[in-house]
Each structure stands twice: as structure tokens, then as C-alpha cells.
């Protein structure tokens, strides 16, 4: 990891701050901690961070308010939400409100590491886009492919598209795959298994042995999975929105789930 990269951890629980900073420091990152979102906002106005990790449930100012404040202050640094299990809906909501990812508590060292890895990768991509913009080089393509306008996405992680009456196709966004990079192996759930929106539905394993949890954009029952991915894993990165789909499912409460999804058409405006 680059020496210049630093992260800010916000949680009202000291032991979480300790644990996260212990791991992040061991990974060679500069770590700042804060036990309140309010004072963290002050820190942010003074210093730029590559990545922010923030708890949702906090007294005074909670994670959602923090996200809103960031938006209001036009701070675009990537934020990963830390959340308890009780708030999977809240976590989904935080993705909708602009967080790039979330980590459900309690998490292992490996899980935290993979999230931080993706968060930093996201930051780097962001930087590259900014550089391209400042250079005003219109011929240079953006480093990732946005999903088709018909689609809906869960944060920057996964997409879904209603294929036919009552059947939904889902897959990983190019941006998510870009943050993972050296994909080595993929582990999928079985046909007939149940997906829940915002919960892990596949594991992407990279060359450096990190396990990235892939979160389902909708809830429902799997009716088909893309077996081609086992033959050629590169298909995912080559054509993430069409041939690289992951599951076909029958959604169970699509109207409710849709409320937490972002229409991809809005990305092009």
C-alpha cells in the first residue's frame, strides 16, 4: 500500500477504534481515530483522507447524518460504513446515501482487510478520474464502465435488471471488479438458495488470498447461476453487464428492494 494513504476511523466504541487502527497500522496505513462524527467532520475540513470508516449507530450524529454532511460539504472521499447486523436495511440505505461499502459487525481481520483494500482501490480510481478531468483529455476513457441505463445498482457493488416478468438477473459492477483487480476464484451459492438484499451472495477470491464478499442487490430465490464463470473467470471482468452475469433469481419483494437501488440512468446525467 502506498505510504501517502491514510484512513479515518469513526466509532463511539473505543475497542473498535483500537482494533481497526491496530490492523490498519499493521497494513502500513496512517490511521486517525475519532469517537464522534461531529469532531471527525472538523478533522475532515483540515485534512484529506484516502478512506473513512464510520459506524452507523452513534449518539449525537449517526452515520446517515454524517453522510449527508459530507455531501453538503462536497467531500467525496470514499466512506465505508460499519454496521451491526440489526441494520442490514440501514446498511443498504447507507449505500443509497453515498457510502461505497459497508462492513457488518463483528468482522474478522481478513474481512476488514479486504474492505480497506477495496476502499483504497476505489480512492485511487477516483484520483485517476480527477486527473483525467483536470488534463481535459476527452479522448482518454474513464477507467471503468458504468452499468447500462436500464439497470439498477446497489451502491457501487452490484447491479440488477428485470429480464422478464418475475425474473431478475444480477451481477457485479465493473467498478466493484476494478476495486478487486486480481480475481482468482469465485464461490457461488446454489440454485434454490435464498438471497437477501445487502447480504453476501458470492465470494470473490483474489491472488493475494483476500476474500471479497459480494452483496446481493435484491432478495429472492436463485433459479440459475452462470456456470460459464467457473470455466472462464475473466468473463466477469470482460463483460460484467451481459455475459458476465452471476445469478438469475425470482425476486420476492422487488418493490421494497427497489427503493434502496440507484437507477443507472442517473449516472449519465
Amino acid at each position: 500500500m502506498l505510504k501517502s494513504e491514510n484512513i479515518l476511523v469513526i466509532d463511539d466504541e473505543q475497542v473498535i477504534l483500537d482494533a481497526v487502527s491496530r490492523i490498519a497500522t499493521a497494513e502500513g496505513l496512517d490511521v486517525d481515530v475519532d469517537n464522534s462524527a461531529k469532531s471527525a467532520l472538523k478533522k475532515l475540513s483540515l485534512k484529506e483522507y484516502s478512506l473513512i470508516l464510520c459506524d452507523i449507530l452513534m449518539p449525537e450524529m449517526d452515520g446517515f447524518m454524517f453522510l449527508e454532511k459530507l455531501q453538503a460539504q462536497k467531500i467525496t472521499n470514499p466512506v465505508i460504513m460499519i454496521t451491526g447486523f440489526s441494520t442490514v436495511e440501514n446498511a443498504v440505505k447507507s449505500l443509497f446515501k453515498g457510502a461505497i461499502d459497508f462492513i457488518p459487525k463483528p468482522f474478522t481481520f481478513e474481512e476488514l482487510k479486504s474492505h480497506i483494500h477495496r476502499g483504497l482501490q476505489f480512492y485511487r480510481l477516483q484520483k485517476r478520474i480527477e486527473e483525467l478531468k483536470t488534463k481535459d483529455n476527452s479522448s482518454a476513457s474513464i477507467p471503468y464502465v458504468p452499468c447500462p441505463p436500464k439497470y439498477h445498482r446497489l451502491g457501487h457493488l452490484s447491479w440488477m435488471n428485470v429480464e422478464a416478468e418475475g425474473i431478475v438477473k444480477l451481477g457485479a459492477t465493473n467498478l466493484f471488479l476494478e476495486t478487486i483487480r486480481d480475481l482468482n476464484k469465485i464461490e457461488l451459492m446454489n440454485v434454490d438458495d435464498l438471497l437477501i438484499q445487502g447480504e453476501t451472495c458470492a465470494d470473490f477470491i483474489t491472488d493475494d488470498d483476500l476474500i471479497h464478499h459480494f452483496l446481493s442487490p435484491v432478495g429472492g430465490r436463485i433459479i440459475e447461476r452462470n456456470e460459464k464463470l467457473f470455466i472462464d473467470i475473466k468473463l466477469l471482468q470482460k463483460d460484467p453487464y451481459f455475459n458476465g452475469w452471476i445469478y438469475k433469481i425470482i425476486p420476492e419483494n422487488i418493490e421494497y428492494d427497489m427503493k434502496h437501488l440507484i437507477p443507472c440512468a442517473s449516472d449519465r446525467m
Partner: protein
Amino acid sequence: MNIGQVITKISLKLILTVGAVTIAIISVYSYLSIQAQRNELLSQAEVYANKLSETIRNSTHLSMLQNRSDQTHRIINTIAQEPGLREIRIFNKEGRIMFSSQPEFIGGMVDKNAESCYACHTENEPLEKLPMEERMRIYQAPKDSSRILGIINPIYNESSCWEAECHVHPKEQKVLGVLDVKVSLKDVDAQISSSQSRSIIFAIIAIALLSLIIGIFVRKWVAEPVNELVTATEQVGSGNLNYVIKDLGVDELGLLAKSFNNMTQKLAEARMQLFQSDKMASLGRLAAGVAHEINNPLTAVLTYSSFLLKRIDNNPQLKEDLNVIVRETKRSREIVKSLLDFARQSIPKKSNADINEIINSALSVVENQLSLKQIKLEKNLDENLPQIKIDSNQMQQVFINLIVNASDAMNEKDGKISIISKIVNLSAYGTLQIKSAVCSKRHTLIDEELKIDSMPTIKLKVTSNGDEGYLNIDPIYGKSRDIYRLKIKNTANVQVSCTKCNISLISKDTFCPKCKSAIYSFEVPPQGMFEKCINPECDWQRWASVDEVGFRDFIEVKVSDTGCGISKENISKIFEPFYSTKGQKGTGLGLAVIWGIIDNHDGTINVESEINKGTTFTILLPVTGTL
């Protein structure tokens, strides 16, 4: 209000009213019958006296003609021997007593103003002919003696009289004298008075008996049921909704008692539902809070241990130990997660699932526990069950809970748990809920605010006689617990419309086949049209597409045990949160949560139990997609 007073008032009023009417009727009847009897007896006495008088006149006729006064005396005296005859006398036109059964009066004069003469001599000119009734008189000579019936018999001049040898009577004379017979009415009066007293005694007995019978039946049919109803209202009023009125028969009060029981049962259900959802909400908050608190220390343990594990390469023993910590912390994480899933049961995540599969996976969780207690398991699962839309995790919790409860209920080692699943077919009429309703312009008619049995109702606008109001329809097909918020005066002139766009829902040209009132209809997507009669008194309704199917399929799962059973007092409480018979062992939440889950799946759960025989829980889940 005093119960005693109410009862006394009603029964007393009834007894007094009926008693008064009875007294009046029996008195009039007795009076009339006494009168009739009296007249009958008197007329018999009159006929007797008249005959006697005729007999005397005829028998003395000859001796008179022969002018043999001694013989006349003898005849009169002989006849006067007859018991009840007071006096026989004959006096001439001047009023001189010529003959008498009492010799001391012979030769005396009769006062023409005396009663015996009164009939003829009221006018100055005496009458010559008199009808029989007017020849009679009843009087009481001395005031305290018995009554006397007197009959006078004028002796008319006949040819034999003036032709007789004595030549006493000239031919011109019309009336020669008068025969006066006095009969004592002592016997007759005695008879009259005895029959009078018989009638009075009969009347008194009849009145007393009738009052007694009325009193007894009023008590049995009115006072006791009313007493029971008053007790019940007081019980319900003081909050005891489990009070059940005993069967009071099929009369109006019996029906009142039945509908009262029905009402309290409905109230109790509604109260329980309210209580339940309230408890569930607070339980959810509690569990969420606890889980959140536990998650933080767990995060610390998990991150540090897993971090440590990564950094140890050369100490396999330590690595193994750390692995145990990581593994067990991950297990705790799963427990917290399931606790939260448990608390979050308000939003079931439903998808098609096989209920038998769920039962089997629930059994695999509790298998160890059952075999430890040496409990026999009997499984009878219908393999042809259709898949139904349920939350598999929640449903699994239901079965785990029921099986654990069943095994806890069995103390001795040779207990048995049986699980039966099968498909049953029940009528939709009276069970199926209308969950969506739209007018012809696709506005929803569902009213989430006013609920019946905690189900949203269908709200319609009603206009009747210029008044505007609302009508909320019972969402259960076949039940008519509709709430009219407007009085419908004329069922022919009613307008029913959508609350949003005012489009009329009244069906043209079709009328209720039961009462001929107007009918209204709306669409229940996707289950076709629903029609109902506007008359609040009429329960006619039709849901054609549902009627076509007729019966709905349900999956029925029975979980029975041979345990200690649940007493009748406790059985109504078992679905209440925090109710537990396990003491410190249980939280008292299991069955409340089960109830909530089943309710969220539009299903029902019932329990039957017998002390020391066992308990059976029956779950009914609708098979969706058949409509």
C-alpha cells in the same frame, strides 16, 4: 347498579301485571258464575212454589165449592207439613184471612200495602191478572231470619163457583180471593252461599297458583339469565374478557348471551393482538439493542484473534488454540445474527419453500436434544405438499420452538412427539381475506386506518337521502361485520362510490337476490369482482372467482406430544408474551413469537391439550397461487 334491584324490578313488574290481569279475569268469571247459579236456584224455588200453590188451589177447589171449610183447613194443614213451607193462607177480596196453616191468623185482616198485596194493589184499582214473575216476592220478614219466597195465586170466579149451592159468590165478581203461599228460602240460600264460597276459594287458589307458576318461570326464564348477563357485563367491565356466559338456551336471552360471548371473545382476541404486537415491537427493540451491544466486544475478540492467527506461523499449538477462539467467536456471531432475525420477524422474507424440508431441517437442529431425553419421534409427512410462499428461517424457528416445547413438556423418558403434515381443503367463505380492492378507475379502496380483527377494511363513500358518510367492509369474505358510519334509510335510493374519484360502484339492473336491494361491486385484483348487498340487514355477497374455486387448500401441520398438557386456565394465555410455565428455564417468548410469525404468513395456529395426556399444536398455512 344493584343487580338485585334490577331483577326484582323486572320480575316484580311481570308478576304484578300478570297477577292483576288474572285477578280481574277470575273475579269477573266467578261473579258471573255465582250470579248464574243463584238465578238458577231461585227460579227452581219459584217453579216449586208456583206448582205447590197451583196444587193447593186445585186440591181445595172442591171443598170450597162444597163450602166445607174444615176440609179446606185440613188440606192446607196437611200440605203445610211439607218442610220449607212457612205458611199457606187464603184471604178473601176484602183481605180477611179465611184459611191459614197458622190458625192464630184466621179472621185477621191483611194490610193491602203489605208485600203480598203490593203487586196488585199499587194502583188504586186492583189488577185482576198477573204474570207469574210479578206474583212472586222475596223478602226477609224479621231482618235476621232467612229469606222467604212468597207467591200469591188469585182465585178467580168460575162458573162452578157462582152455580154452586152455597151461592156465596155472585157472578159479577172476578177475583174471589187470594191464595198466598210462603216458602222458606233457607236451603236455597244455604246452597247459594256454599257455591259462592266455593267459587271464591277456587278463584283465590287459581290466582295464587298462577302467580306462583308465573313467579317460578319468570325467575327461571328472566331473572336468572338477566342475573347471569349482568354478572357477565360486570366481569367484562372490570376487565375479565375470559368470562363466558353458560348456555342460556335458544330464546332471545340465550341468543343475547351467545352474541355477548362472541363479542367478548372478539374483544379478547383484539386485545391480545394489540398486546402481542406491542410486546413484539418492544422485544424487537430490546433484542436489537442487546445484539448491537454484544457486537462491539465480539468485533474486538474476532479482529484481534484473527489478526493474531495470521501472524503466527511457527507455533502450531498456539495457532490451533487461536483457531478455536476465532471459530467460536464466529459461532457467537451466528447466534447474534439469528437472535436479530428472530427479532426482525415483522418483515418476513417470503419465497417458495417446501414445508417438509423446513420441518426436517428443524428436526436436525433438535435431534440431539430428543435422543438425549430418549424421546421417540414419529414423522408422517405428506410428500405431495405444494411449495408455499413462506419465510423459511422464521418457519424453521416455529418448528424448532414447538418441538423443543414438546420435549420440555415430557418428564418421563418414553415420551413421543409426532409431526404430521398434510393438505386440507377449507371453504374460502368465512376465511379468505380481501387484501386489495380498487374502483373502476383503479383507485385503491383499502383503509389501513380502520381495521377489523387488525385487518385493513375496504372503505366506500355512501350517500343516502342527501347524507354523506362512509362504509367500511369486513375484509373476510362471508363475514359481515361491516361498519356503517351512516344510517341507510332507504335501500333503493343509495349511492355507493369511490372515496377518491366518486365513481359509482352501484351495479345497474342487478339487485340482491335475497332482499331486492341495490348491490355494489368493486374489483379485487387479481381475483375478480366482489359484489355485496347495500342493505345493512342483509348479508348477501358474492365473490364469483372465489366461489368457483369453492374451497381453498391449506397445509396443515400438527405437532403433538404425550407430555404433561396445559390446563384450561393456562391455554388461553400461552400465546401471550412473557407467559411461561418453565419458570427460570424459559423466557416466555417462544409461543408469542410463533404466533406472530404464523400471523405474518396469513396462517392460524391453534392448540388443544389435555392434562397428562399431551398437547397438539395445529398450524394452517394457506397455499397461495390456487386462486
